[in-house]
């Protein structure tokens, strides 16, 4: 509503020579990334203060994060492993958020994606000795199908009945966890443990270390093929959003649903399609994690990737290519964060970053002017 009122002028008088005005023109292009950077720096300082309050040493905590995630090729490879699911869920969130569809359910879609991929191996849908490429394709398709289904439900409810998708996607997260638990405990439990059997090797995504015979430098590197999936998906979604007619519709619905409606764009249809694609991408993240890292279905497969994806999407300004970069930084935070005490620190820093980020958006619409007002 506020966008339409550009020619409105504030007439309030200020005693101080600093005042805040609504921007009449577009903000400069560099402002938005600068604000994000400042928000992150501010958040890290605030996080440091909180760690210090709790009795930790903030600088040691931060330098520990940097060293144990970028310090050598080996740990950087681990960082990339953590970044892989983050890129995928970040892209999934960016796509939905572009249309102002609040898909908070990437976590649940991740879980059912992992379930779908596991079902291919454990049911088994393919003969156990099928070639690796068949397994990879079948697992990816199954994961994406399950994720898309998990996105379809809230998408349909939103489009048909106007049901708030934030709550439905969130509720489906909890349902997905219990769904997986049933299969982990009751159906695929191995020897009474709360996990399935280890997948046979031909259902693993190829890792760099598998090629250490040909390239010595790859020895011990766990970065897997999921990273390739993630980058391809990010590029494809970037293309869809910014270069395709469909992407134009998505952005138009997000910016101005009324105008989109007048232009004859089917909003309901797009909600369903975007939710399904978003869910499928998050489901692929689950598949990539299961087939590339965990190699079995178990309860603890995500330290909240789906929720971190929300913050990553915002920090990357809903741009899938920027998501790749931001995800690597967050991958580092998660990787190193496992060893930091107290354990809630990464979640807290993420929260502070998000709050600062949203608050900083204010300066995209308003400017602070120092000095006397010209018209007075």
């Amino acid at each position: 509503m506020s966008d339409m009122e550009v020619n409105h002028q504030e007439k309030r008088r200020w005693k101080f020579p600093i005042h805040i005005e609504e921007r009449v023109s577009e903000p400069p292009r560099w402002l938005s990334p600068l604000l994000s950077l400042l928000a992150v720096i501010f958040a890290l300082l605030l996080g440091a203060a909180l760690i210090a309050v709790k009795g930790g040493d903030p600088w040691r905590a931060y330098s520990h994060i940097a060293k144990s995630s970028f310090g050598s090729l080996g740990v950087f490879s681990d960082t990339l492993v953590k970044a892989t699911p983050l890129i995928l869920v970040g892209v999934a969130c960016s796509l939905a958020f572009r249309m102002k569809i609040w898909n908070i359910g990437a976590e649940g879609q991740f879980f059912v994606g992992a379930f779908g991929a596991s079902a291919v191996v454990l049911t088994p849908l393919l003969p156990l000795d099928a070639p690796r490429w068949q397994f990879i394709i079948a697992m990816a398709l199954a994961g994406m199908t399950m994720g898309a289904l998990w996105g379809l439900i809230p998408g349909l409810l939103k489009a048909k009945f106007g049901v708030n998708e934030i709550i439905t996607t969130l509720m489906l997260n909890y349902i997905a966890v219990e769904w997986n638990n049933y299969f982990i405990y009751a159906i695929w439990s191995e020897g009474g443990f709360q996990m399935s059997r280890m997948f046979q090797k031909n259902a693993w995504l190829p890792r760099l270390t598998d090629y250490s015979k040909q390239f010595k430098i790859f020895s011990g590197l766990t970065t897997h093929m999921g990273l390739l999936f993630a980058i391809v998906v990010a590029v494809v979604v970037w293309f869809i959003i910014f270069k395709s007619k469909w992407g134009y519709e998505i952005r138009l619905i997000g910016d101005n649903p009324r105008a989109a409606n007048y232009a004859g764009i089917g909003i309901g249809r797009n909600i369903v399609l975007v939710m399904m694609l978003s869910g499928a991408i998050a489901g692929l993240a689950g598949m990539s994690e299961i087939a590339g890292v965990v190699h079995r279905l178990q309860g603890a497969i995500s330290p909240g990737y789906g929720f971190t994806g929300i913050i990553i999407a915002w920090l990357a300004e809903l741009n899938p290519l920027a998501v790749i970069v931001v995800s690597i930084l967050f991958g580092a935070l998660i990787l190193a964060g496992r060893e930091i005490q107290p354990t809630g620190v990464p979640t807290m820093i993420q929260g502070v970053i998000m709050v600062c980020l949203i608050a900083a958006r204010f300066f995209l619409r308003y400017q602070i002017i120092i000095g006397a007002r010209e018209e007075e």
Partner: protein
Amino acid sequence: MDIILVLAAGIATGTVLLFGTLGGIFSERSGVQNLGVEGMMLFGAMTAYSVTASTKNPWLGLLAGMFAAGLISQVHAFISITLQADQVVSGLSLNFLATGVSLVLGEGLNSIKGVPTLPFYTIPLLSQIPIIGRIFFTNQSVLVYFGYILFPLAWYFINHTRPGMHLRAVGEFPAAADSQGINVFFTRYLYVFIGGLLAGMAGATISLAVSPGWFAEKTSAGQGWIAVGLVIFAQWNPLRAAFGSYIFGTLRRLVLDIQGPNMIFSFPNPFFYNPYLAFFLKMLPYAFTVIVLIIGSHEATRKRIGSPAALGLPYIRGQRGL
């Protein structure tokens, strides 16, 4: 399985949802949607438990928990009211912030033993009423009784008092309220704060009464989100909120208790013989929330009532429209 005891425990569980939902109603009636209820609940639960552990005074803990959640709700108020940011994004980020801060500050709280809980009472005469007395008035936490008093008061306040009318005006048509001399910004800050207080009370109800202790994120286990859903189901009406909260509380409780007996009403209990089926039972409260939202949204659109007209929109002085 004593069905009466299950229902009584369900009422206690429902009290958590009731406070969260009422808080959401106050905040949303003023036009500010707050998706941070889950985080504020956790923050309230953590603070209440922590203060109680160090002072041995659960009343002090309750107050501290409420105040802490009220305080953190002002982050959302500032960002969405003054900075005019999108309320959905702002509420979500409050949720992350409050959850993260609770996890950091709550580290190690679970190992503390001997933390007192709020007192439980049996009401002398009312508890003698057959069935109802045993469900509602026997050995319940003091907060449960407070809940019985709070929801009719909230309904009366919103619908039949002058400040309640101001609250509704700010949520329905802030420009008109502003022209009548009501301070829209102050009103919204105030009710977001009250929403925070109640979310904090909901958290304290968990950690000091219903399931005492601190279990990190599992303390609230999504109840804040269910409360957000119940606000819509209740169509922003405290009486319907109480109805929904107690039903949902009972459902959550039933899921926990149903695995106990080997016979239910002289039928063999499938959840006793195959405990794994309980995972499907655990989905029920969440699935029901979705179903309730479908019903709620359908009714709301049909009747065209309920949702405050200015919900989710920042108020900017001097602009046309809402």
